[in-house]
């Protein structure tokens, strides 16, 4: 019995309806979001690039990228690139990469004059590169991208890594935690160049952040958490250092016992649809996804479907992050109509395959 039929049979209606309806309303939701995000998203204005990533990559996963104009997206993203100052590159050498959006007032046409306090953010650089590739940005001589200043980005990563091995997201003083370790690793992987990060130091940070239950927290001593565990394991995978994990069976045990119907992010928390990606993808990286009870997980994820998108929990309103994570979660289990994803990179395999493996 195929995965899709399982969902269809339980709805009680004619077999095709439920699934087809889900996909149609999803496409409508994504198309709407790609045009205009409703007012509450103003609170995430500075992370707009991540929102773009969730929408565009989701469209790619359901093979509906033709609903958006890829060239326009590529141009918009390049307008967010922070480039070295045209006169004196040393002025902003630590701040190159991509911004979260034009919220600081930069000119759309590449503004090469360094503006006060303009800075990139490591998570925006990562999502920018991912969306560029998803939209089909063509490679250039030194990188898989047409107009990315690879050297500037690699160089800026050096300034973002701290003595603990963890990474800051921006050059000014800011928090540092496991999320940005992952961002640094995935940026390096996509650019095919790990010279910007000290891998040993990053690995040490990951080991220090491993909890007594073998999951990972955001930092040393902190509670094991699905999101930070994904970031840690995916980073190790991208840095080719999965061998550093101290006890894989114990980690797998922690990951699998997070499934209570859907996946919870921490022990004794309620299940949340996004962990179907964070936990699911970690299991996929470790080659143990087949131990997930997918029918049960699928029921939970589908119960989070709401107004075309997906919410964090049943009966709540949808948002683009949980929509994307739910799609990824379904993809990992082979749900029909969704492309397979690359666990460590987090987007579709056919896009992931366009990056040469730097470790071969």
């Amino acid at each position, binding site marked *: 019995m195929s995965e899709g039929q399982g969902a269809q049979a339980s709805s009680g209606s004619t077999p095709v309806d439920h699934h087809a309806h889900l996909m149609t309303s999803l496409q409508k939701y994504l198309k709407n979001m*790609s*045009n*205009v*995000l*409703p*007012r509450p998203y*103003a*609170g*995430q*204005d*500075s*992370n707009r690039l991540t929102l*773009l990533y969730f929408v565009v990559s989701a469209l790619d996963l359901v093979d509906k990228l033709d609903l958006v104009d890829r060239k*326009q*997206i590529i*141009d*918009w993203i390049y*307008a967010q690139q922070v480039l070295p100052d045209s006169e004196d590159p040393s002025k902003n050498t630590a701040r190159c990469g991509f911004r979260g959006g*034009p*919220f*600081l*007032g*930069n000119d*759309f046409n590449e503004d090469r004059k360094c*503006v*006060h*306090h303009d*800075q990139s*953010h490591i998570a925006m650089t990562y999502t920018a590169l991912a969306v560029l590739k998803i939209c089909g940005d063509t490679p250039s001589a030194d990188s898989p991208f047409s107009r990315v200043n690879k050297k500037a980005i690699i160089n800026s990563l050096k300034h973002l890594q701290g003595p603990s091995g963890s990474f800051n997201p*921006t050059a*000014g*003083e*800011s*928090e540092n935690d496991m999320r940005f370790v992952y961002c640094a690793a995935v940026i390096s992987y996509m650019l095919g160049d790990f010279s910007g990060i000290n891998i040993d130091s990053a690995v040490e940070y990951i080991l220090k952040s491993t*909890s*007594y*239950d073998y999951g990972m927290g*955001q*930092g040393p*001593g*902190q*509670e*094991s*958490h699905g999101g930070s565990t994904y970031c840690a394991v995916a980073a190790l995978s991208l840095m080719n250092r999965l061998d550093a994990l101290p006890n894989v069976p114990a980690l797998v*045990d922690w990951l*699998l016992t997070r*499934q*209570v*119907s859907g996946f919870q992010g*921490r*022990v*004794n*928390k309620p299940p949340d649809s996004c962990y179907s990606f964070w936990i699911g993808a970690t299991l996929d990286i470790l080659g143990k996804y*087949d*131990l*997930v*009870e997918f029918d049960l997980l699928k029921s939970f994820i589908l119960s989070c479907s709401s107004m075309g998108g997906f919410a964090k929990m*049943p*009966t*709540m309103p949808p948002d683009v992050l949980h929509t994307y994570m739910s799609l990824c979660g379904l993809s990992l289990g082979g749900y029909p109509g969704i492309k397979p994803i690359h666990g460590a990179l987090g987007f579709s395999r056919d896009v992931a395959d366009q990056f040469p493996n730097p470790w071969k």
Partner: protein
Amino acid sequence: MSSSGWRTFHSTTSRDFRLNTRRLLLRLSLGSKGLRKASRLLKSVLHCESHLLYISPDKVTRAMRMVQVSISKLHRNIQVLLYGRFHPRGNVVTSARRSLPWRLHGVTGVNFYKTKERAVDTQDSLDIQMIGFRIRQRPTAACGTMSTNENRNISIMSDSSDDEKPQNVYVPFGQREEWEDVTPVPQDDGPNPVCRIAYDDQFTDTMNYFRAIVRSDERSPRALAITGDAIRLNTGNYTAWYYRRLVLDSLKSDLPKELEFITSIGIKNPKNYQIWYHRRAIVEKLGDYSRERQYTEEHIQQDSKNYHAWAHRQWVVETNGWWDTELEYIDKLLQYDVRNNSAWNQRYFAITRNKTRQVDQNLATQETDYAISYAKKAPNNQSPWLYIKGLNNQDVGKLKEICEHFHQNYPTSPHAAGMLAELHQKEGNKTRSDELYNLLANNLDSIHKKYWIYKMQQE
């Protein structure tokens, strides 16, 4: 009781709720012309008494009861605080929003918020929580009978820290004299923006001026103020926070006052990374950690698993070596909720990171016994088992003894059985371990059947 005074109604039994509700109805029918409109609104709200609220898939709650009303004529809003009994893990605000008939005449919208107060009803372990909502009214002619002279804003508790500050009418920056010299900088989204956000006018206006100030690198009191405005509109604006720190530095601002600012923003945004980092930066600069444990405790009381609050607390405790009282605090939390994994994690942190004392056999045994006593209260709770395993990782014999004993007395616990199966398997006792794995797969923990069968097949 004069018609201008409102008594506070507090009760924990449903009988009292009903009495209080009737009394309130009576009071509302008195009063000036201006209040009649309000009373009509409230009567329709009161009729939702018989509504059953649905907040979680498997638990139905009792109805919400109104307990107190305060009317602010000046601000044309009516504040209503409701008492209800809710499942601690349910989302009360969402449920209230969904079930109350807020499409009332002249109402422009409803703001919901959760108040701080919370009590535990130990009988059926449901929380009693208060939620409030404000009904905003359009200032139509009908409502205009509310005289602006009288401001009858009486709140339920003497501590009205949860009440929003009076909502000032927004004045565009272009109309503010003190901003005359600044040219606003609009956002350039290019000819074909994607994922545009539907900003409202206030957002656009504030950000235009914020952009101008940041570009000019101005470090003045008004620059500080506008970073505050930008932050309130988008608490994740990392540049606004970063710039604010620069301005605070240049102005040599009063840092304790800044902590108050952080506290006020943090109430509505308890899970925002930037706020917590900013607090840490200010506290470090100030060198004064004295308020911090209390601050984390207040957040933990709202959400006992707030990741940021715990991380902040770890930093504060470790930096100052405040280990002594930590175990006591954790124990209080565990008594309230034995399943609080954040508290268990904190316990492990406090036990192992305290460099003034060795984690010797004695301590490990003490803590293991402690964990077992809690494991007995809820045999299905994974937290204490992870803790026990973490403390006794090397001592296989001891672990086996603990698990055997527990499994005999609490045969439904999947955690003891699971650990026991693994221990037997490692020793080569295949019959025993297979027996336990089968028990887990078919009985104790059938959700993870695939996993138990897989484990059984491992060498």
